[in-house]
């Protein structure tokens, strides 16, 4: 047994000592960890490491085969990308516990922070308390067992793997569904709990991927090389990938999936920031005088400019005032009214367009007799 006192050496030096001892096959005790980060990162020998206190971020990350026991809490990312071995945490774990787990076992006796088991691929993450929101976020393999409540949006965007919740499922994430726990699932969980001396008799709710997202009715075609022009000058916009993309789109009617993309919500009224506090505007001010709806295009390099302008419209052609929301109401009324009114609706729409005056000299000349 080797003892490393982190009040005497830095974590970097401590980890060097840890690796040296582990390569000799000696078990290790870490004293005064005081929640320092990166303890035991990259340890690839099957030794036992006892951390006498709390560990900070990424404890036991990237390790392969070591058995860690942390007496108290751990910070974010315990067992990050661990390949094999185990971590047993006596207290709570911060966010992203077991992130990107590639195998091995992470056991947290207390509660889990948010996004536990994010993008994990294999292995088991056990939480004996409650989990926070987004447990199993984007997981694509392995198993998460939560003996307490699940936290909100459990299994958000998971694509494979399974989450077993012993307490209340607070809410399911998108693309997650509840499935039936099989006898094999049950037996395997009980064996796991017994191995770590955790007592729990209640039933489990199993959560798996529902398969509604990122799946399309039409598959992407199998790519085949397409002829395209290659210029001797080097890279251009046209390359094999671009041509293939266009081909795929022509066949399936959408772009191929590249990443997750992003959606932009329609701007909300609350997004409008007014430069002047509206309560300071007095009724006497003529707001229209300050509005200028004119622009000039192409007035550079001696060219004849194109001048565009239009009057400020504060009433639509029906006479319904815009400020009262009259335009919209009028519009709706007409839509719900009979055919005669419907015809008159088409008549008023082009008016604002006619109000625009085009002042290009060439057009002006054309209008002259």
């Amino acid at each position, binding site marked *: 047994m080797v003892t490393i006192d982190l*009040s005497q050496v830095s974590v970097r030096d401590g980890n060097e000592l840890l690796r040296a001892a582990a390569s000799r096959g000696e078990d290790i005790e870490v*004293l*005064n960890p*005081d*929640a*320092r*980060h990166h303890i035991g990162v990259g340890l690839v020998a099957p030794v036992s490491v006892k951390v*006498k*206190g*709390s560990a*900070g*971020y990424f404890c036991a990350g990237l390790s392969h085969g070591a058995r860690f026991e942390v*007496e*108290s*809490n751990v*910070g*974010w990312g315990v067992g990050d990308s661990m390949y094999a071995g185990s971590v047993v945490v006596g*207290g*709570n774990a*911060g*966010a992203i516990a077991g992130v990107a787990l590639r195998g091995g076992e992470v056991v947290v006796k207390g509660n889990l*922070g*948010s996004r536990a088991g994010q993008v994990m691929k294999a292995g088991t993450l056990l939480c004996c308390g409650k989990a*926070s*929101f987004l447990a199993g976020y984007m997981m694509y393999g392995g198993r998460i067992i939560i003996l307490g409540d699940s936290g909100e949006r459990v299994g958000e965007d998971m694509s494979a793997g399974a989450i077993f919740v012993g307490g209340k499922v607070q809410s399911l994430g998108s693309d997650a569904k509840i499935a039936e726990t099989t006898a094999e699932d049950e037996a395997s969980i009980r064996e796991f709990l017994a191995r770590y001396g955790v007592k729990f008799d209640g039933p489990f709710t199993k959560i798996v991927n529902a398969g509604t997202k990122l799946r399309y009715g039409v598959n992407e075609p199998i790519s085949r090389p397409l002829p395209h022009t290659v210029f001797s000058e080097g890279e251009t916009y046209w390359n094999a990938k671009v041509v293939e993309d266009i081909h795929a789109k022509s066949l399936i009617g959408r772009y191929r999936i590249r990443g997750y993309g992003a959606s932009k919500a329609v701007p909300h009224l609350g*997004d409008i*920031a*007014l*430069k*002047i*506090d509206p309560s300071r505007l007095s009724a006497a001010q003529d707001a229209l005088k300050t509005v200028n709806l004119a622009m000039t295009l192409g007035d550079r390099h001696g060219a004849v400019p194109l001048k565009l302008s239009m009057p400020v419209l504060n009433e639509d052609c029906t006479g319904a005032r815009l400020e009262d929301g009259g335009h919209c109401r009028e519009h709706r009324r007409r839509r719900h009214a009979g055919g005669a009114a419907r015809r008159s609706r088409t008549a008023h729409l082009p008016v604002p367009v006619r109000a625009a005056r085009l002042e290009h000299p060439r057009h002006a000349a054309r209008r002259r007799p």
Partner: protein
Amino acid sequence: MCGIAGIIFKTPGTNQVLGRALVDMLDGCQHRGPDSTGFALYEDGIKGLRLRFLTGEDSAAIERIRAALADQKATIIKEKREGATFVVDVEYQGDIQPFAYAMEHAAKLVSIGSSLDIIKDVGTSHDLDKTYHISEIRGSHGIGHVRLATESDVKPEAAHPFWATGFADVAIVHNGQITNYWKMRRRLEARGFEFRTDNDSELIAVYVADKLAQGIKLEKALEQSVDDLDGTFSFLVSTKDGIGFAKDRLAAKPMVMYEDDGLVAIASEEVSLNRLFPGKPLSTTEPAPGTFRTWSRSI
């Protein structure tokens, strides 16, 4: 990334090694922000109002400050130059906000308070301790910050804490990004508030100041901030009476709390809390996403 820390001693008159505690806590999480460090300390025994300015070597600024103070009918009790700052304790009766703006036009004002003193500069917590003797400061509570610059320059005025402009004894420290910064800033500017930097954390200070100006209680202001501010944030706010925190709904910025009979300590990471109790495993809790809380000296 940035690191924040706050501490409040529950029992008045005891255990008030405030400066030492915050220097150690910030040293614990200095890896989260090596660019600059700052403290908002609520000290015992300040007479009148304390004003701290960033002046550097600019002697003309000190003359401008003296002239502005005379202009505002504030009597100087004591003044000193300390590091890059100029500290002056004054006797002043009147509205703080116009006084503060008048002083800000004279020089870069860091804080005003009857017990608040904001000390911030580029460098680590130990660097600042050497220059400003922070570990000798005794007091009831305080907050601190280590900064990794992401949104604006590395300079003393962009360091945290930020004083809630116009409100004596209110300060904030922040870890995160406020993504609706410009929208909120324009709204606050339209209401007559002035901004000194492009730092999104200053917005939180002014936001809190605006709420307090409307007579809204600090706890309510923190509750509203969780709805009004977009982005990822964990921030601490301190007043003459106590400290509080607010945390965004995404919980993307860490925060850990420790409480016992003598004190409440909050920090970005447990490693900071452990600096108060070396070698002792702590029973800590993590505030839930989208939550806020305050502690006052009367608890």
